[in-house]
């Protein structure tokens, strides 16, 4: 398969558009003939990452690259950073406000879901500078 790349700018102010990058990616992967279960895993990983950026980091940039052996997703933001990655990766841990919880988020499952549904995950974060999460889903 030819290498294929998608790039999105996520607007942190626009909650109504949140999830659109994930939807676009899903449609593109479907056209490429990627297996349904792989698309499902990519969708979960990317949607959780996209919502994290909107809810916690005022947006950022997402790239999705389809290679021969894997799909790589990179989410980069200039948000507050993650003070304790270990805690953030524990199911149920959340720093979400009540406002975010009322929207159905803040269950403390975002990063745990991402880790669960990808094959490799790396988090680079610096307080006050931003966070970059990269994930790989094998084909």
């Amino acid at each position, binding site marked *: 398969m030819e290498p294929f790349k998608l790039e999105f700018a996520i607007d942190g102010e626009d909650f109504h558009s949140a999830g659109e990058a*994930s939807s676009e990616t*899903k449609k593109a992967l479907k056209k490429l003939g990627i297996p349904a279960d792989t698309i499902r895993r990519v*969708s*979960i990983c990317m*949607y959780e990452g996209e919502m994290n950026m909107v809810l916690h980091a005022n947006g950022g940039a997402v790239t999705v690259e389809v290679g021969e052996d894997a799909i790589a997703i990179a989410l980069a933001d200039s948000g507050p950073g993650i003070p304790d990655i270990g805690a953030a990766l524990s199911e149920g841990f959340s720093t979400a406000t009540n406002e975010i919880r009322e929207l*159905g988020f803040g*269950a403390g499952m*975002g990063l745990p879901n991402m880790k669960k549904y990808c094959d490799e995950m790396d988090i680079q974060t610096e307080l006050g500078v931003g966070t970059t999460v990269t994930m790989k889903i094998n084909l």
Partner: protein
Amino acid sequence: MLSGTDSAAEREVTGGYSGDLLSWVMGRARAGDAWVTIMSNVSVAAVALLTDVACVVLAEGVKPDEALLSRAVKEDLPLLCSGLSAFELCARISKALE
């Protein structure tokens, strides 16, 4: 039924899922499910499209907000609402699936 063309509405429901925590639903609802929820914001459409559920049923008389309704119309997502409780809806869906 608030949105979804006839062809989208004719899709077979093969299972059901009930939940309001969107990350939970995202990881667990399956394609073809009828998803019963009391959440009414635009993220419901995003989760429904990504999980590929057959329809969304808003329970307890909940009405979708404007952004959810317009996204559901745009994406041809069958969105239904009912005055029944989530429990009662699940019981009826489950019975219909037998």
